[in-house]
C-alpha cells in the first residue's frame, strides 16, 4: 500500500506511535495495571512538569545544564577540529599524535571526572572540562578522517591550478571535510548530554542531572520522569538544529566523490 503524501495519514502516522504509547500508558495506569510507584501516568507527569515550570525549577536547572554543555562543547570542539584537520593533512603530525589519541580516546570520560575535580575544583570548571574532553576526541577523530577521505583528484586539481598551502586549506581541505566534521559535532553533542547528566549526578546542586538525582533521593517519581523527558527533548532539539545548519552549509553532501570511488 502506498500513501498519498498529502493525505492526513501521511502526517498522522509518525506521531501516532508516540501518542499511542502515551494513551496506552495512561489507560493501563488508570486501570491499575501499572505500579504508580515506578510508572506514574503521563497526566500526573504533565502536571508535575507544569508546576515545576510555574515555580521556575525547570528553567533554573535547564539553563545551567545548557550553559555547561555549550561551554564544554566550544572548549572541546574548537581545538578538536583544528588538531584533527592538522593531523589529517600532515602525515608527520599524524604519526606524532596518533598514538596519544589512540591511547587516551577509549578512556570513559566519566572515569576521569574525579581527577578533573582534583585539578579544577568542584565548581563549574571541572564539569565543563569533562564535557570538553568528551567532545574533543570525537570531533578530532572525525575531522581527521574527513581530511583523509578526500578524493585524490581534488588535491590534483588544487595543485594543477596553482593553489598554495593556505588556499589548499581554505578552498579544498576545509570544505571537503565539513560533512565529516558535522558527523563529529553530532556525536559530540550526544556525548556531552551523557557526560553532563553524569557529572551532575555526583557533583551539582542544579542541572538536569541533579534534578533527576534529587528526585530519586526524595522519591519524587514524577519529577524524575520530568528530568528524563527534558533530556529527551534536548537530544531531539540538538539533532534537529544541527540537521538544519548542516543542510544549509553542506547542501552538496552526498554528491561528493569519495576516495573509494576512484
Amino acid at each position, binding site marked *: 500500500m502506498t500513501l498519498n503524501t498529502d493525505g492526513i495519514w501521511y502526517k498522522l502516522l509518525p506521531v501516532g506511535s508516540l501518542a499511542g504509547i502515551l494513551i496506552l500508558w495512561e489507560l493501563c495506569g488508570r486501570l491499575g495495571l501499572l505500579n504508580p510507584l515506578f510508572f506514574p501516568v503521563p497526566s500526573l507527569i504533565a502536571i508535575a512538569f507544569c508546576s515545576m515550570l510555574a515555580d521556575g525549577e525547570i528553567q533554573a536547572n535547564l539553563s545551567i545544564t545548557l550553559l555547561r554543555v555549550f561551554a564544554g562543547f566550544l572548549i572541546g570542539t574548537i581545538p578538536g577540529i583544528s588538531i584533527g584537520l592538522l593531523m589529517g593533512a600532515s602525515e608527520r603530525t599524524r604519526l606524532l599524535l596518533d598514538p596519544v589519541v589512540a591511547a587516551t580516546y577509549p578512556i570513559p570520560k566519566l572515569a576521569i571526572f574525579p581527577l578533573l575535580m582534583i585539578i579544577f575544583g568542584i565548581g563549574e570548571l571541572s564539569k565543563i572540562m569533562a564535557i570538553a574532553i568528551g567532545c574533543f576526541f570525537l570531533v578530532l577523530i572525525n575531522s581527521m578522517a574527513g581530511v583523509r577521505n578526500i578524493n585524490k*583528484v581534488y588535491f*590534483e*586539481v588544487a*595543485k594543477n*591550478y*596553482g593553489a598554495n598551502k593556505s*588556499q589548499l586549506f581554505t578552498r579544498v581541505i576545509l570544505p*571537503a571535510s565539513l560533512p565529516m566534521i558535522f558527523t563529529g559535532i553530532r556525536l559530540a553533542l550526544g556525548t556531552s548530554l551523557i557526560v553532563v547528566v553524569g557529572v551532575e549526578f555526583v557533583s551539582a546542586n542544579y542541572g538536569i542531572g541533579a534534578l533527576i538525582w534529587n528526585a530519586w533521593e526524595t522519591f519524587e517519581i514524577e519529577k524524575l520522569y520530568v528530568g528524563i523527558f527534558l533530556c529527551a527533548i534536548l537530544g531531539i532539539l540538538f539533532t534537529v538544529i544541527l540537521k538544519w545548519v548542516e543542510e544549509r552549509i553542506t547542501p*552538496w553532501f552526498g554528491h561528493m566523490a569519495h576516495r573509494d570511488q576512484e
Partner: protein
Amino acid sequence: MKLECRHLSKIFGAGVKATRALEDISFETTEGEFLCILGPSGCGKSTLLRIIAGLLEPTGGEVIYSGNNTDGPLNSMVFQEHGVFPWMNVIDNVAFGLEMRGVSREERYKRSLDFLKRVGLAQYAMRNPHELSVGMRQRIAIARAFVNNPEILLMDEPFGSLDAQTRLILQDELLKIWSDHKKTVIFVTHDIDEAILLGDRVLVMTSVPGRIREVITVGIDRPRDLQIESTQKFLDMRMKIWNIIRSEVERAMTVGSS
C-alpha cells in the same frame, strides 16, 4: 609554446612489486596542435599526462616547455570526472585557477561569465554543480581550464564517463572552442573515433610497459564536425589505427584474464 618529452619513464613501486608504467616516451608538440594520446586502459596514458602536468615525477627523462612565456600558467588539466568541486558554485569553479593566481574577484567573474555565456551555461553561474548533469559538469571543467588561459591544455579522458549522445555534443563543442583559441591540446582517450575526430596527430600507445607504438597524422581538413565520421578517409584511418591497436588490446586482455 612547445612541449617536449624526452625519454620519459615511470616505475611504480620497487623490488619485485615494481611496475613499469612508462618506458622511453619521447615526442614533441607543435604550436597550436591538437595531439591525441590513444591507448587501451592501463597503458599509462593518464600517468604520462600527470607527468606532463607536473603532478607526478618521472623516474627518468624530462619534460621541457620552451618558447615565449606569457603571463598564463604552463598547463591546465581537465580531469576525468569528479574534478569539479561540489562545495563551490559554477562560477567559482570556473574562476578557480584565476582565484589561485590572485586575479581580483571582479575580473575573474567577468572572464568566467564571458566564457560561460559562450558555452550557454551563464544562467547556471550561481548554481551548485550537483544540481547539474554530468555533461554540464564536464563543460564546467573544460571552461575552468580555458578561462585559466594556459599555454597547453591537458585533458584526461574528459568525456569518458558521459553517455554517447552527450559525448558527441561535447566533442563538437570542444572543437568549436579550440578553433577560437588555437591552444596546444594534449588529449588522452581510449576511443579511436574520438582521437581521429579531434586530433591533428594521434599518438598510439601500447601497454605494460606504456610505450609509443606509432604516431599517426590524421590529415583530415578542419573545421571538422561529426559529419566527417562517415567519410571514407575517416573510416580508412579508423581501420588503420584499429589494426595497430588490435594486437595490443588482445594481448592486454589475455594478460588481464590470466
